[in-house]
């Protein structure tokens, strides 16, 4: 249990560094540390599927950020702006939101089961019948590709949409007409 607290403190420290440091590359590395800590926590709570996904996605995220930063700028131009009159309204709105959120959070947290003793009504059924009903030794694979296959189809569509969105936004020009090519 003590390891979890150490990792949580490391995550918080890295997150603070990420938002405070001016160099964007250093911020990306700090975010990588946050993700790495999450992966180790998943290992400690015996969730290897999540740990594997977390570690590989985190590595790729840092690579993506580094590639983009190296092509643009290292400097975070939003750091260090003085608090001015134009920030009063956003700050007030954020304050109201924070108070309401903290209130609701305190109510919800009391309803959670004790850490390490989760409710297992649905998961127990999956574990009991998973191998017999699906043939998959890895219960996680049985859940995401048999019991919840529609959900996985939705996730595949989300990723496809993400790719299309990125390609559309990053491309500088639309496709040229054939007539323009012929004129050129």
């Amino acid at each position, binding site marked *: 249990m003590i390891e979890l607290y150490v990792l949580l403190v490391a995550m918080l420290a890295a997150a603070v560094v990420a938002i405070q440091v001016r160099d964007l590359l250093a911020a990306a590395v700090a975010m990588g540390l946050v993700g790495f800590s999450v992966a180790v926590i998943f290992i400690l709570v015996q969730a290897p*599927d999540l740990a594997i996904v977390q570690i590989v996605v985190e590595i790729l995220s840092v690579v993506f950020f580094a590639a983009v930063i190296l092509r643009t700028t290292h400097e975070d131009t939003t750091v260090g702006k003085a608090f001015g009159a134009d920030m009063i309204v956003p700050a007030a709105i954020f304050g109201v939101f924070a108070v309401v959120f903290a209130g609701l959070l305190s109510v919800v947290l009391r309803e959670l089961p004790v850490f390490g003793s989760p409710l297992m009504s649905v998961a127990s059924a999956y574990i009991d019948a998973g191998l017999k009903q699906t043939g998959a030794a890895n219960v996680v694979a049985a859940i995401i590709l048999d019991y919840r296959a529609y959900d996985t189809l939705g996730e595949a569509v989300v990723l496809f949409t993400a790719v299309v969105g990125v390609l559309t936004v990053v491309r500088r020009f639309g496709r040229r007409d054939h007539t323009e090519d012929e004129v050129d």
Partner: protein
Amino acid sequence: MAGTGQPERRGMSAIVQTIARLVSGMLFLYGWYIVLHGHLTPGGGFAGGVLVAGSFILVSLAFGSVENVEQHRYTFSSIFESVGGLMFISIGLAGYLAGVSFLNNVWFWVGRPLSLVSAGTIPLANIAIGIKVGAGLFAIFLALGASRFVMEE
């Protein structure tokens, strides 16, 4: 560089390129190992697909790109992403062939549990997702960080 007779070096240093040659093949195989054993051990299509994408990203970062190579990368990643998505839907249609609902697992009685050939269409769906995720992430990487020609046209 002009006049020296040396070809212009693209990508990163010789050390990085040598290590990339050694590592990228193993990374690719490890990704596919995770995909194919997703119904037996932790991991699966998504994690394996990310690793496969990582092997391609490693090569493109280490060796740089010229225009026609980059166009091929872009074209093939788009094609494989669509193929992966269509494969997943086709595997779902197998449920209809077997007389049950769309995306239902079928033929899970084939083979023996805990062996590679088992779990019906679950490993096939893992393969489809691996292809889709790998190609999709590589396409995103090309668009965001590595494109010198295609996205600048």
